[in-house]
Every structure is written in C-alpha cells, then in structure tokens.
C-alpha cells in the first residue's frame, strides 16, 4: 500500500476545501435539500456552519465526505477533485466526529481509536503508539482509559475519544457534526476550549456544524450562516457577522445582544487600561493623604507589599483613618486579568459599586484599571472599526465577484476558455 510508511511523518496540517455548486435533491422531493452551495474554505481554517434546524447544514457537511452523494456540483480537497473517487478512500483521509461520539460500544477506547490507522495499513507498533499519543492529546490518561469500553466513560470523555478517533490517522480535514450537542453546558464549554487548544497545535481544516450561534462565535475563524436549502446568508468572520449582519435573517439568527456577544471576542489586553493613582501600604500616611488631596481623583488604590490591589481609599475615608489605615477604605473584592474578555470585565464593573475594576498581571500585580467610561469608549470604537472593516470587506467581495464574472464571460467568448 502506498500510504504505508514506517516513519511517523510530521502531522499533516489542513488542506483547503472547495465546494462548487453543490446541490442535493432527494428522489421524490420536488425542492432540493441543498441548492447550489459554493464555498471556499482555506487550509487550517475553522469554519462553522450554523443555521436553523433543517436548513441543510448537516447535509452540506456530509457531502464533503460523500456520506451523502451530491446530485450535482464538485468537491475539491487540496488539489484533488474528490467528487468521483472511491468514497471509502476519501473518508479515510477526512476525520469525522458526530454527536454523542459515535463510538462503537463493543470495542474498547483503544480499539475505537485504532480503527482508521489499521484500515489504512499502519504497522501495529505505530498504531499502538499513535493511540497513546491521541489519548494524551485529548487529555485522557492512556493507562486509565486504554481498555475501557465507551459505556464506562462520561459523555464528555466519550466525545474526547470520538475526536481522538477522528484525528487518529492524521487527516488534513476534520468534519464535526454537532459534536458537542449532547453534553451538558459545562462539559461543552470545556470541550470547546479543548478544541481551540487542539486546533492551535494541529492547524487542521475544520468544518463544524452547530445550531448554537454562541458556539459558532467561540470556535469559528469564519462562520457560514445558512438559511433553508443551505443558501449562504453570510459567510464572514464572527466580528463582521455580529456588527454587520447581511440581512434580517442573519441578525435574527445572531439574536438579541450582538454587541454583548461582541464583548466575548475582545480581551482586556486589547483595550487601553487607564492608570489610577496608587499608594503602597507601607507608604507614610502623610504622603498618602497629600496625594489624595492633591490628585484629580478623589480616590486611590492601595497596593499590598506584592503590589497587588488591596483597598480602594476615598477622600472621605480619611476622616476615619486617624493613625492607621486598618479600618479605612473598601477591600478590593474582584479583579480581572488582561486575558479576561470584555464581557467578564463589564460584569465586574457592573457589580462594583463605584463602577471600576482593577486589572492584574500574571502574579496578581496591579497593572491598571478598567472603568465604565473606558469600556464604553472602547466598545464604541470596536464596533465602529468592525463596521468599517465589514463594509470594506463586502466591497472587496463584490469587486472579486465582478472580476470573476468578467473573466468567465471572456473565457466563454473565446470558446472553451483555453486561456488559464
């Protein structure tokens, strides 16, 4: 077998996928289930198909590995037209993970993961070490889980094994059909984080079907919002879809609170934190008092010996602080890190009675402060920037389309398009 190699090769990163005018009409039904879908998915990209139930998003996904044969249209993966090759061969090169894991209950975890490597003829020793490697990759201890049966695993663990099985033969493309649909919200959140981490390491091309728009925002490099018959309502980055939905259908699907959801995409480190007057807990009282009276703000942040935020100190607190600061001020209850999303920051700001929250570094040391005003300004700027970018992007797309049409027409005029 030509694919058989003894040396473990470098992990295959993604291949691009091109869908050209894919249509699926089921016999006996007048309207196609999927109509004329064309889409280009770049190598290493995570693309989410999202849409209401029955919009054909799953059908579209299953046409990529030809579990459902398209009625017309072409599918290209990498440089290869896979529309007419042996489907069994095609599927061994395309990872496939489904809802509720799809693990075979009569096989152990290791047997499930080893299925595809065995089928494509990997030697036993390589398969065995690959199984261990995959279990490790999805965060399951090989020693503990190797010989378990799927029913001895929790839903989240089963799903991890499902992903491990899909990735076992190192396919460049991974198709995921609502993989996290059947697990509880906490586990789902966890699995999503895991997938982001995995993708960071592996750079596969991932097509992911979901009906949960929040999941789409979290995972997707780009999101394809699909309406009935898998018509693409909008295919763009999460930011662009949130700030500039193409039409009423998309904005309806994005749902209320697009601006709020947008906050999930930006982190505190991306917006400016403002400086705030601070004082060390060991500073002489006099100097603290002076600073408070002199400063423009009527408040300062007291830091402990490790420069961690300790207390908010107001001018009015000074009256109570005679000799010592022990009783004055309000303890800092909540801080955010620079990696927190703006949504977390907003949450903290809203709960704080003075409307600001201290931002801390890795060891909890003070970096700056985020308050309502900075948040507001930043969010406005972000949304404005998104809007501009989206408009520009749409412009580009239109130009590209016009260009393509022109070229096609020229090609036709020359009879057969012998020119490349």
């Amino acid at each position, binding site marked *: 077998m030509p694919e058989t190699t003894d040396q473990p090769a470098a992990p295959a990163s993604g291949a691009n996928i091109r869908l050209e005018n894919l249509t699926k009409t089921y016999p006996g039904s007048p309207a196609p289930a999927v109509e004329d879908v064309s889409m280009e998915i770049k190598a290493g990209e995570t693309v989410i198909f999202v849409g209401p139930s029955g919009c054909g998003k799953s059908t579209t996904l299953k046409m990529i*590995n030809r*579990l459902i044969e398209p009625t017309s249209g072409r599918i290209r993966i990498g440089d290869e037209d896979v529309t007419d090759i042996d489907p*069994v*061969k*095609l*599927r*061994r*090169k395309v*990872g*496939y993970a*489904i*809802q*509720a894991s*799809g*693990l*075979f*209950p*009569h*096989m*152990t975890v290791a047997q499930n993961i080893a*299925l*595809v490597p065995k*089928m494509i003829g990997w030697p036993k020793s390589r398969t065995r070490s690959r199984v261990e490697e995959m279990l490790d990759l999805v965060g399951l201890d090989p020693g503990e889980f190797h010989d378990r*049966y*799927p*029913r001895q695993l929790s839903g989240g663990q089963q799903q991890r094994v499902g992903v491990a*099985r*899909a990735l076992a033969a190192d396919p460049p493309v991974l*198709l995921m059909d609502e993989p996290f649909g059947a697990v509880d919200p906490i586990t789902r959140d966890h699995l999503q984080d895991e997938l982001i981490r995995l993708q960071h390491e592996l750079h596969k091309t991932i097509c992911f079907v979901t009906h949960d728009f929040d999941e789409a925002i979290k995972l997707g490099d780009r999101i394809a919002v699909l309406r009935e018959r898998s018509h693409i309502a909008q295919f763009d980055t999460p930011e662009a879809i949130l700030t500039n939905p193409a039409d009423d259908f998309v904005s309806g699907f994005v749902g209320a609170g697009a601006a709020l959801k947008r906050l999930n995409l930006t982190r505190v480190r991306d917006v400016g934190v403002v400086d705030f007057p601070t004082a060390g807990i060991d500073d002489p009282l006099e100097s603290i008092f002076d600073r408070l009276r002199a400063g423009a703000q009527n408040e300062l942040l007291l830091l402990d010996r490790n420069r961690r935020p300790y207390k908010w100190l107001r001018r009015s607190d000074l009256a109570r602080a005679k000799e010592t600061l022990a009783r004055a001020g309000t303890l800092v209850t909540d801080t955010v890190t620079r990696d927190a999303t703006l949504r977390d920051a907003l949450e903290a700001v809203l709960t704080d009675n003075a409307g600001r929250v201290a931002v801390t570094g890795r060891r909890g040391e003070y970096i700056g402060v985020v308050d309502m005003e900075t948040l507001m300004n930043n969010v406005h700027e972000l949304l404005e920037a998104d809007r501009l970018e989206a408009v520009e992007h749409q412009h580009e797309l239109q130009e590209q389309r016009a260009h393509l049409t022109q070229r096609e027409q020229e090609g036709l005029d020359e009879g057969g398009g012998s020119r490349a």
Partner: protein
Amino acid sequence: MSFWEYVSTRHAQLLTDTYQHASAVFQCMVIATLLGVFLGVVTYRSEWAGSLATTTTATVLTIPSLALIGLLIPIVGLGVAPTVIALTLYGLLPVVRNAIVGLRGVDPALVDAAKGIGMSRAARLFRVELPLAWPPILTGIRVATQMLMGIAAIAAFASGPGLGNEIFRGIASLGSANSLNQVLAGTVGIAVLALLFDAAYVLIGRLTISRGIRA
C-alpha cells in the same frame, strides 16, 4: 425392571442414541445459523424482503413436524436426509427473525459513523453490525436449539438417528415390560441434553459477546 435397572443394562445403546441426537441437533443448528444469518443479512435492509423471509420461515414452523417428515420421505427417502432437512428448516425461523431484528436495531448513527470513518460495506457488516446484533442472534439460536431438541425426536419416525427411537419403540410396544422405561429414558435424555446445550450457550455468550455491550 425399574427405570434405573433399565438404564444401566441398556446404557451403551442409550449413549449412542444420545450422542446421535446431540450431534444431529448440533449439525443442523450450525447449518440453520449460517443460513439464517445469511438470510437476515441479505434481507434486513429491505422492508418487504425482511417480512418475506420472516413470514416464509414462520410458515414452515406451522407445519406439524410429523407431517413435514412424512412429506419428505417420498422425496428424499428414509434416514438422515429427511431429519437434517426438517431440523434445519425448523431451526431457521428464530435465527432469521432475530438476525433481522438485531441488524435493524443497530443505531443508525453508529452505521453512519462507521461509514464516515471510511469502513467498507463488508467491514461495516462484520466489524460493527454483526457484533452489535450478535446478542439477539445468539438468543435466536438458543431458542431454535431448544425447539429442535424436541422435534429431533420425531425424526425416528423416518428411521432417523437419536433418542426418538427409544420413545417410538416404547410407544410401539405399549403394555410390554419395558415400554414405559423406554419412553421415559428417551424423554429424560432429551431434557438433559437440552439443559447441557443451554449451559453451553451461556458459556458461548460469555466468550463471544463483547464486555462493552453485555447486559
């Protein structure tokens, strides 16, 4: 002569009969299983073919065994042939029916997953569908075996092998000294065989049903 005296004086003959009875049932069950699973695999995916297979095998079962053997004698003669044919036909129904039910009961999502990871049709059948359908198929085989134990006794009517000979001899000489012992020995022998076979099936189930799907 008491029953125990009868058994001890005739144990050589009884053992031969018992062995032949067991061997006939076992061999016919092997044929019925292969044929039944094959019929199930061929028909389970089509609604009408599946019902046709089930109905046909069910119809065979409604023919009284004595009548079926009687009908077979003019065609295939006396002895082993009518016995094997009759037993195999009777053994088919439970196997076919359970094979179809079992194969149809495999979660479509799993078949989809098997296809999706690139298993060929044959690999799907042998590595996923049949192993998952195996517990109900084995139950079918077990039920069929129990049934054949009794039906095999009738085979003696066509001069077939087995413990039926004891029973028929006893019935034919009703009133003579040993007639009751003969009938009793045949019947008890069949009952003991049936229990032994059942125990064997429990063991086979333990060995062949994956721990992952065992109830």
